[in-house]
């Protein structure tokens, strides 16, 4: 089906802000202790997309990040590797080579990340380039320019085009909504619903490039959209909050939220990811604290 057919009869679902806030307060008050905490920390680490998306990225910086992705902290026992390394398309090859032999994936941001201000033709070329370089996953941005004008059909059309390119190459697709630029929770829900029509592998909150990144409200709304979509179509879609999640405690709250909204099937790095760079070290610090009983200091952990 094309975008027009998919969108016929589309009705926006309103979001109950008070309900969202109330549910988050309850989720945050869950107590996670010792054994569950250890398990949770390890799970969080295995779900991280270790990210570097700077103009100043160099091949060596990416290699260093890849090493960290495979060996987060060798001194600690039983530490999993992270899920993926997330880089710009030009650095995919470097990352792919550096990660050879490990099961850490390479994700490439694409479609003129972070603004998405280009033609569809260019976006597809860039995506094709990233795939040719060896990317396992593509993180695309939706066109906020068109979304904010109400041109939802075009937004969906773009996602469908990128999706079919990814499917043809057996590459997983994450769709970034950049929730900080699209407005209220109602709009977030609308954007989620539109993106979900294309059956991407993940929907993702943010680029991490603007002030307002992932928060629990936005994530809850998107998780709920995923659940409703799953109920309707039976298609499982993953979730990736990105940016702004820098401490282990918050990350554990997110896991609680995923478990309560979507259930156990989503609790693996196949269906849930954290887009983060600082989070990994905080998780490692907490893991070291759990093992030794001694509170840690950041200077004993590698910078990434």
């Amino acid at each position: 089906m094309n975008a027009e057919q998919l969108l016929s009869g589309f009705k926006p679902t309103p979001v109950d802000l008070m309900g969202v806030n109330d549910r988050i307060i309850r989720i945050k008050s869950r107590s996670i202790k010792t054994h569950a905490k250890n398990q949770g920390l390890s799970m969080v680490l295995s779900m991280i997309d270790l990210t570097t998306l700077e103009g100043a990225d160099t091949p060596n910086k990416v290699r260093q990040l890849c090493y960290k992705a495979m060996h987060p902290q060798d001194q600690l026992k039983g530490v999993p590797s992270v899920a993926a390394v997330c880089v710009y398309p030009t650095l995919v090859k470097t990352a792919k080579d550096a990660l050879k032999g490990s099961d850490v994936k390479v994700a490439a941001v694409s479609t003129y990340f972070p603004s998405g201000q280009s033609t569809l033709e260019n976006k597809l070329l860039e995506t094709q380039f990233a795939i040719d370089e060896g990317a396992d996953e593509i993180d695309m941005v939706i066109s906020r320019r068109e979304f904010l004008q109400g041109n939802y059909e075009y937004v969906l059309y773009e996602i469908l085009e990128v999706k079919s390119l990814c499917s043809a190459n057996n590459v997983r697709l994450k769709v970034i909504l950049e929730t900080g630029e699209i407005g209220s929770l109602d709009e977030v829900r609308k954007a989620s619903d539109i993106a979900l029509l294309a059956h991407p592998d993940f929907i993702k909150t943010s680029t991490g490039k603007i002030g307002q990144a992932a928060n629990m409200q936005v994530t809850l709304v998107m998780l709920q959209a995923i659940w409703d979509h799953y109920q309707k179509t039976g298609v499982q879609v993953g979730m990736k909050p990105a940016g702004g999640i820098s401490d282990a405690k918050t990350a554990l709250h997110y896991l609680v939220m995923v478990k309560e909204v979507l259930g156990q099937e989503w609790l693996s790095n196949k269906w849930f990811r954290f887009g983060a760079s600082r989070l990994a070290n905080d998780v490692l610090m907490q893991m070291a604290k759990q093992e030794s009983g001694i509170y840690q200091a950041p200077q004993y952990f590698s910078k990434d």
Partner: protein
Amino acid sequence: MTRLKIHKTYKIFIGGKFPRTESGRYYPINNAKGEPVANMCQSSKKDFKNAVVAARKAQGGWVGMTAYNRSQILYRLAEMLETRSASFIEELNVLGLSKKAAEKEVNASIDRLVYYAGWCDKYTALFSSVNPTATSHFNFSVHEPTGIVAAIAPEKSSLLGLVSVIAPVIAGGNSVIALASETKATSSISFAEVVQNSDVPAGVISILTGSASELMPHMASHMDVNSLVDARGEMKAAELNITNNVKRYLNWANKVSNQDPYLILDCQEVKTTWHPVQTNAASGAGY
């Protein structure tokens, strides 16, 4: 019907805010007759950990300030305490100090803050050195703060004792997490209100209440604490699992009753650096 008096539950002071202890534990403070007059937070290791996080956040800004600016801030603390001296005298009086003795303690606390305020921009000039060398180099030794200092304040004197521990530590550009007197902590937390209303950046001073024997092992083992000051002689260094990171374990039990610039130096480390001498002839230019 007789009125039932309400006993205030004092909170703790972490990162410029007054949270309750996360542990939810409290203990009563009694006056000289043994009657309860207030409730205090029994801080846990997690409260201490939160204070360390706040201190680390604040440390960069505090050490980056000019010494002159730090001096002004300490003086501001003294000013704020002076304006509230009446309520401090009252509070100490409730716990059994005579009016006269209470007034003496408050005045001495104010004077002590002024004393260390004066030292802020002078101790480096006085105690740093240019060392003799055998080559054509300058060799300097200068003092730098160790970083985050965990401190056990004296038990008997809840205001003057606390001030005497905090002031030399922060005068030297450190951040401090002080454990107040256990049995007389009321005026220690009131002092935290003075701190909050002065210009001290949030996190530079945190004040906890509770048991030293419970908290000290965690102060000693925390990897992000750089010095440990014990003004009570509460536990021997050997009993504590002091991590490598805690560079100094300082017993101030017999030291804090006096004001002393060497207390500032206790929480400093000496950095020595070489610099080649550039002679007039070599540079080809006169001074």
